[in-house]
């Protein structure tokens, strides 16, 4: 059965992010040459594609970490500077501030936004309760395990109640046990907050497991190869991984991925 590849998300809902004519060139060769994309609000989107296709670059361009060479990216009509976003880096060790306690790390973006002390304390306490943080946040990041550090990173990104969360391979520096732990925490975050999530992943299983939509990219110059929906109910668990729906979605995504790699 051959289905037509989708070049964009369904435009039925008002999108969280609108990308038009995105251009980015690295060392003279175009990475993005006029990409159009509407990212739906309140959905979990996993970005997957061949090596060097610019998965991370895409979320870095959208989040304003690196400048675009052309095109327009709007968050419901506003530029990125006017929007509260959260970003979780691959390498939590380099992203957290080791001179502050874990709690002060989570608190820092609230300080930057000028919240008063009482409101900040309420918000951090709320996060700790919501995500059942069981370790001592008075300790500094390097005194915590890798998984605990990445959880602190996620809470820090989540603290100022962002409209969009960007996650750049947040599991790749973790061992398998910690990956499972953070994956479940991330699912809880999404269920409880409904924040729009953009996850870059190099592991198709986790990409599909967490996603409402898998965004598959082509080789450079990068375009959308296809968008695959995965509608399994949440909370998803180990049983999800062997459900026929999951296996079929993963197989279909893999087929498109391999077609793009060979192209």
């Amino acid at each position, binding site marked *: 059965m051959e289905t037509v590849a989708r070049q964009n998300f369904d435009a039925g809902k008002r999108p969280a992010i609108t990308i038009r004519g995105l251009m980015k060139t690295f060392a003279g060769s175009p990475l993005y040459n006029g990409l159009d994309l509407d990212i739906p609000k309140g959905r979990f989107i996993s970005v997957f594609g061949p090596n060097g296709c610019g998965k991370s670059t895409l979320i870095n361009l959208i989040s304003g970490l690196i400048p675009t060479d052309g095109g327009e990216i709007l968050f419901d009509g506003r530029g990125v500077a006017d929007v509260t976003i959260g970003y979780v880096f691959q390498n939590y060790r380099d992203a*957290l501030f*080791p001179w502050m306690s874990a709690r002060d790390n989570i608190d820092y*973006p609230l300080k930057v936004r000028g919240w008063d002390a009482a409101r900040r304390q309420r918000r951090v306490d709320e996060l700790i309760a919501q995500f059942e943080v069981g370790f001592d946040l008075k300790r500094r990041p390097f005194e915590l395990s890798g998984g605990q550090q990445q959880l602190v990173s996620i809470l820090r990104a989540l603290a100022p109640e962002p409209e969009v969360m960007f996650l750049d391979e947040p599991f790749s520096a973790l061992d398998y046990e910690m990956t499972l732990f953070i994956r479940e925490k991330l699912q809880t975050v999404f269920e409880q907050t409904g924040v729009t999530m953009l996850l870059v992943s190099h592991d198709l299983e986790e990409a599909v497991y967490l996603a409402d939509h898998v965004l598959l990219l082509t080789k450079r110059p990068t375009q959308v190869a296809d968008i695959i929906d995965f509608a399994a109910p949440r909370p998803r668990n180990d049983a999800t991984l062997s459900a026929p729906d999951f296996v079929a979605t993963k197989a279909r995504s893999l087929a498109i991925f391999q077609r793009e790699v060979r192209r």
Partner: protein
Amino acid sequence: MSRLASWAQAGLRQPFWVGPLLIFAVWWLAAAGQWISPKLLPDPVSTLAALWTSVTDGSLAGDFAGTLGRTLAAFAVAAVLGVPTGVVLGSDTRIYRSLEFAIDFFRSTPATAMFPLFLLIFGIGEESKVGVAAFSAWLVIVFNVAYGVMNARPTRILAARVMGASRARIFRDVMFFESLPQTCVGLRLGVSYALVVIIVAEMFIGSANGMGRRIIDAQQIFDLRQMYASIIATGCLGYGLNLLFLSIERRFLDWSGR
């Protein structure tokens, strides 16, 4: 367990005493066996006795204080002028690149080669000695602070930027802390450089007191015990300053490199 036994155990676990004991033993053997002429090497016991006498009769105190005071004065000047300069250089690669050659050139020039110039500018008083030492320490502080600021981890800066922090805020909250470990290295090297230059200056520019003056005076009158005793005292001063800076670093910058 008795206190003595627990000390003995600690001494075996961290045998820091082996080095000094070895030096003492070799020195004693060399002196006793006259491997080296007694005209050049007195025995260690009488040398340490001379050091003890200088400490207890107070004759060492003035020279020790003089050198320590000059070194700290030179270091203070160098730190106060060097840290801000390093921060400015490090925060803008264009400024750094345009001054890199000048800094590297003067860093490669022995500071002691500048003595005549500083004598011309400041005269033969304290200012010229402290001036050269401060100049020498200033260069190493500037270089290390600039290096520390330039090598702040980019991810941490990006993390603060994506939270909406302003440039000034990123500088104060992230780059400042990121540069602290390297700044401390610069300050520790700076105080060592200042001591070296001060000792040489006291020897050859001339000085009313100071360990450099004390060492060269002992040599002139061939009081070898006193000369070695003063060298050891100067070594203790340098070691003590280094230890002080290291312990400050360990206490306050234990997150460095994490």
